[in-house]
């Protein structure tokens, strides 16, 4: 449904996107994850034909965004970072306007508006001025605008920003309900959002893709070296003692906690050296207080991918 290859975008001399390639198939929910300024919004603006790419090929629903922008635009629903709403318009008028812009006739637009209002839970504010609505409702109106013409492809730039927790859950459920029929790309820097909604995730940093896969696969790949946290009373010689144990890849001094010392031990692939480590620590008389394995949370994955490593 969406094919991107070799996409590059320059802002003046600054490279915002650097040779990105990915694809999304029909019915999939693809999450764009990355820190601020990573190039998520820029990629989305190119996908929606708002902005031309510096180089590379982007095809949406079989149409090239540069050659056939009108055909692409017909098939895409887009929610930009700031919802593109007219403050002085009434919600239902605005949605009808958006539907008409996408080529729906008057009667069709009315029908589509009713459906979108229902889906986004805007029923009781449909006759109010958008300018008087709260930020969360404006965001919902923006989402309603993106889905009003029932597009094949939905591109949502941080769809849950400014919503309260209950609304966030509702909107996530709404987005999940699009999977199957619509292809959805959503960007976010909120990790649980990806966990909750996306079937696949694309982690992007400084204009480059650092990982594309299902979330489980990415975490699994990063977890291949298991990490242990060890708390000991005595510290002298423990660092070297730990390093000399067979299967230990690296040891890192994590500082003192209540008079005790914490060490972070990474174990090489394929080894389960917990018993040896414990045994050795006891032999050393290090005063072992605690030992536990550190699992990698989504936050760790994200931080690791976007700060330390180039790619997985």
């Amino acid at each position: 449904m969406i094919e991107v290859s070799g996409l590059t975008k320059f802002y003046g001399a600054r490279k915002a996107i650097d040779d990105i390639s990915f694809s999304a198939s029909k019915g999939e929910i693809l999450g764009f994850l990355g820190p601020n300024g990573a190039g998520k919004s820029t990629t989305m603006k190119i996908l929606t034909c708002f902005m031309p790419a510096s180089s590379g090929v982007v095809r949406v629903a079989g149409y090239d965004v540069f050659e056939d922008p009108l055909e692409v635009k017909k098939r895409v629903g887009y929610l930009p970072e700031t919802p593109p709403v007219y403050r002085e318009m009434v919600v239902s008028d605005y949605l009808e306007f958006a539907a008409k812009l996408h080529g729906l006739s008057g009667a069709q637009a009315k029908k589509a508006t009713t459906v979108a209002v229902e889906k986004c839970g805007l029923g009781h504010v449909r006759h109010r001025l958008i300018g008087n609505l709260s930020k969360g409702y404006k965001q919902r109106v923006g989402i309603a605008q993106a889905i009003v013409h029932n597009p094949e492809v939905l591109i949502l730039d941080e769809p849950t920003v400014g919503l309260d927790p209950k609304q966030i859950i509702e909107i996530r459920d709404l987005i999940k309900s699009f999977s199957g029929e619509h292809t959805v790309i959503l960007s976010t820097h909120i990790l649980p959002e990806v966990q909750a909604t996306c079937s696949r995730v694309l982690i992007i940093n400084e204009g480059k893709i650092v990982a594309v896969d299902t979330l489980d696969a990415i975490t699994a790949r990063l977890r291949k070296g298991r990490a242990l946290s060890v708390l000991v009373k005595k510290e002298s010689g423990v660092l070297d003692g730990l390093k000399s144990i067979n299967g230990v890849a690296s040891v890192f001094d994590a500082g003192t906690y209540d008079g005790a010392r914490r060490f972070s031990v990474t174990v090489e692939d394929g080894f389960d050296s917990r018993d040896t480590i414990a045994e050795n620590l006891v032999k050393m008389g290090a005063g072992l207080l605690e030992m536990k394995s550190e699992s990698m949370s989504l936050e760790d994955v994200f931080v690791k991918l976007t700060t330390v490593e180039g790619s997985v």
Partner: protein
Amino acid sequence: MRQILTIASKDLKTYFTSPIAYILMAVFSFIMGFMFFSILTIYIAQSGQYQQFGYGKAPGINDAIIRPLFGNMNVVLLFMIPFITMRLLAEEKRNNTIELLLTSPVKLSEIVLGKFLSALSFVCILISLTAPFMIALAIATNPDWAVVAMAYVGTICMIGVYVAVGVFCSSFTENQIVAGVLTFGIILFFWIIKWISFNSGASSVMGDIIGYLSIVDHYEDFSRGIFNTKNVVFYFSAIWLGLYLTYKNLESYTWRA
């Protein structure tokens, strides 16, 4: 084509959902009413003097009322149109709603024409507020309807140019004040451009060209009730130029963004 109307009607409605439309209409009718009233009182006083002192036939109401009234209206519109057009594209840019327009399957030309038509039709509504004056004249005297009709046609042509300039200036910036001031400056400049052609003295080719560019000069014939295609061509080319430049400017907006 349908998209042009979608955008035009949305923008026209927007004038009326905000106070803009009502304030403009109120101020315009007050000023125009005041002008009509004062022109009328002067005319009545003058025609009394003509009769009293036997200077001959008093000037007709076409020359003494309709022409100055429309002349004044053009000046009032010169001041008011920047306020009407300044928000058209500047506000879309500021509120990011331009992203909705530019990612919808709508051609750029349709956006530009829609914006132009919305402001033009609003100004036409403003101008229609002067219709009661004409009805009053028709009841009291016998105006030349050709002159009245041509005065309206000429005014609409002329405000077409104003609005095209306004749309163009509005496409430049996201600041409405900047758009408004630029619009006013450009229109005013083409009003007074003829001054240099007078001052240069000799009727050089340059002087002729500058004289041709004067917006008001092309209105003269209309105000006498004459329909001259030469003037219509001038106004339509000026409108086309303004809208074409807007189109080009918007086109480059996405490249620069």
